[in-house]
């Protein structure tokens, strides 16, 4: 990420230098402002979902839901940490359902647990699953298509799902293949 940051930052700064030196600082400030706005929006949605997940945990339902998924999750993430696996399962379920903002709190918690246990592989796997879009129903796209006057807004569902399925499997396979043998 350090490399990516340096390359893109410097390239953009040079373009600014040549074309529009006065626009450089406003662009950075706009980024900072966006981050502040986004953080407030995220904070609101994390509040709701962290409350939800706490109730899920305290009711014992999270334990029960995760129990059925343990064998699969244990093999996928190569981890024995029941708590981290339960969080990872919640993250994946929230992703599949497309609940906006919901996957992040359990996902971050699971990643931190995996990393603390030295299981970089599991953290990478969870990240790649999240970053290849697991959503079953692309609600944002369908809403935008409907707003733009599409005759069948849900028409892109099949190609989207197929493409996502293949790319998610490919991503997971790559994580497995590039795993450093301990």
């Amino acid at each position, binding site marked *: 990420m350090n490399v990516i940051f340096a390359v893109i930052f410097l390239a953009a700064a040079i373009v600014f230098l040549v074309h529009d030196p006065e626009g450089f600082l406003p662009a950075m400030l706009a*980024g900072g402002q966006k981050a502040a706005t986004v953080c407030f929006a995220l904070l609101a949605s994390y509040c709701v979902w962290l409350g939800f997940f706490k*109730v899920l945990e305290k009711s014992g339902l999270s334990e029960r839901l995760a129990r059925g998924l343990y064998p699969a999750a244990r093999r996928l993430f190569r981890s024995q940490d029941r708590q981290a696996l339960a969080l990872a399962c919640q993250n994946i379920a929230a992703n599949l359902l497309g609940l906006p903002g919901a996957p992040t709190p359990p*996902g971050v918690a699971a990643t931190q647990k995996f990393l603390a246990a030295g299981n970089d592989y599991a*953290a990478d796997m969870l990240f790649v699953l999240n*970053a290849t*879009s697991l959503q079953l129903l692309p609600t*944002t796209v369908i809403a935008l298509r409907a707003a*733009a006057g599409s005759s069948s807004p849900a028409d892109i569902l099949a190609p*989207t799902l197929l493409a996502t399925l293949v*790319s998610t499997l490919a991503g997971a396979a790559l994580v497995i293949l590039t795993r450093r043998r301990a």
Partner: protein
Amino acid sequence: MKYAALLLPLLFIALFVYALIRKVRLYDCFTEGVKGAVPLILSIFPYLVSVLILSELFERSGLSALLTQGLAPAFSFLGIPPEIGKLVLLKPFSGSGSTALLADLLAQYGADSYIGRCACVAFGSSETVFFISAVYFAGSKKSLLKPVVIALFSNFLSLILGCLFCKIM
């Protein structure tokens, strides 16, 4: 599509009723969960700022437009309409920016056109890779090159496949 909206209220009702049966003190419990939101945001915030500043620089400098132009031949070779190139380049950085761009594309080319459909599939089958890596790996010292490259590659794969499926389906 109307039924999708029922999911959220049903989910909360089901959970809360179940929790009440299991004698969970709902108010105390929900509040305790909310407590975790501020520390979570604080740990994410610095990373979010860096990624969003980067995304803003990328877009406003004209770098994304330059790259879109430069990559157009490569995109058309892979069967990706060059018109959606900018969307493809912006999506890894910013969800809100690419959402606005998708709306523009749909308005310009029409939601049911080939370009419009490709744009929708490209948008729906990809994720904001840099944004997610900032959030998920906040505070970690490990090298992110491998997972980020794998994620970008997978998203690119789904883009090519998505455009192909749009053509044949």
